[in-house]
């Protein structure tokens, strides 16, 4: 897994590629935690290049979303591939996380 971080206004975009799994979840958590510790709580996870996410990756998304919302921010998802979207639906995550077709839409949703 590889990540890169962009900033648009107050919104942080974390571009993720590869696999979000038990081996990489800790690194991904570190990326999100670093941004939140720096006071940035409006986050977009760009999943466009994610091959798959295991339950370990889902735990990171859930924990990050909870932390962000508890500080008046949010984690929103963009561009999941159909297979990844299926996993998000199976897990019930599409009921609690906002999912957008594009990164631009996700960023704009923060208003």
């Amino acid at each position, binding site marked *: 897994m590889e990540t890169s971080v962009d900033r648009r206004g107050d919104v942080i975009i974390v571009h993720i590629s590869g*696999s979000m*799994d*038990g*081996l990489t979840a800790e690194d991904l958590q570190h990326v999100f935690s670093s941004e939140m510790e720096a006071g940035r709580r409006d986050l977009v996870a760009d999943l466009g290049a994610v*091959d*798959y996410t*295991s*339950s*370990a990756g*889902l*735990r990171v998304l*859930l*924990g990050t*979303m*909870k932390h962000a*919302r508890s500080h008046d921010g949010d984690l929103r998802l963009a561009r999941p591939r*159909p*297979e*990844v979207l*299926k*996993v998000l639906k*199976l*897990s*019930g995550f599409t*009921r*609690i*996380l906002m999912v957008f077709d594009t990164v631009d839409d996700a960023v704009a949703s923060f208003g």
Partner: protein
Amino acid sequence: MEHLPELVEFAAQCVRESGGDAGALHDIRLAVGEVCANVIEHGYTGERRGSITIETTTTAERLVVRIEDDGEVFDPSGLPPPDTGSDWRRREPGNLGWHLVYGVMDEVTHEPRGDRGNVVILAKRIGPASASAPETG
């Protein structure tokens, strides 16, 4: 856990060689990754070494993955279902892994190997077929 990608990639390669589509490739990678991560995290808790053996068999229409370990016996069919409906404040991620395995595979079976060890068999429809091979990680 550092060998997890090798185990997942072995299964993925079997899907590719069998002509499986992107959906089958994703689902096999996910399921094999979840089962193996569970063995590493829970089956071999506190142990520095342990073996996981993966064998695949393909037929005309489906891929069968047999995952064998020597860890603590664990029957996933006895797990309570995960929480997929609560409000985000109360949502906990427990038991999602096996829920995903059951969700993306056509068949999942578990057999204990006596007092220690497990055999998990995953089956997935993939379409046209060819190869089979074993690997130990």
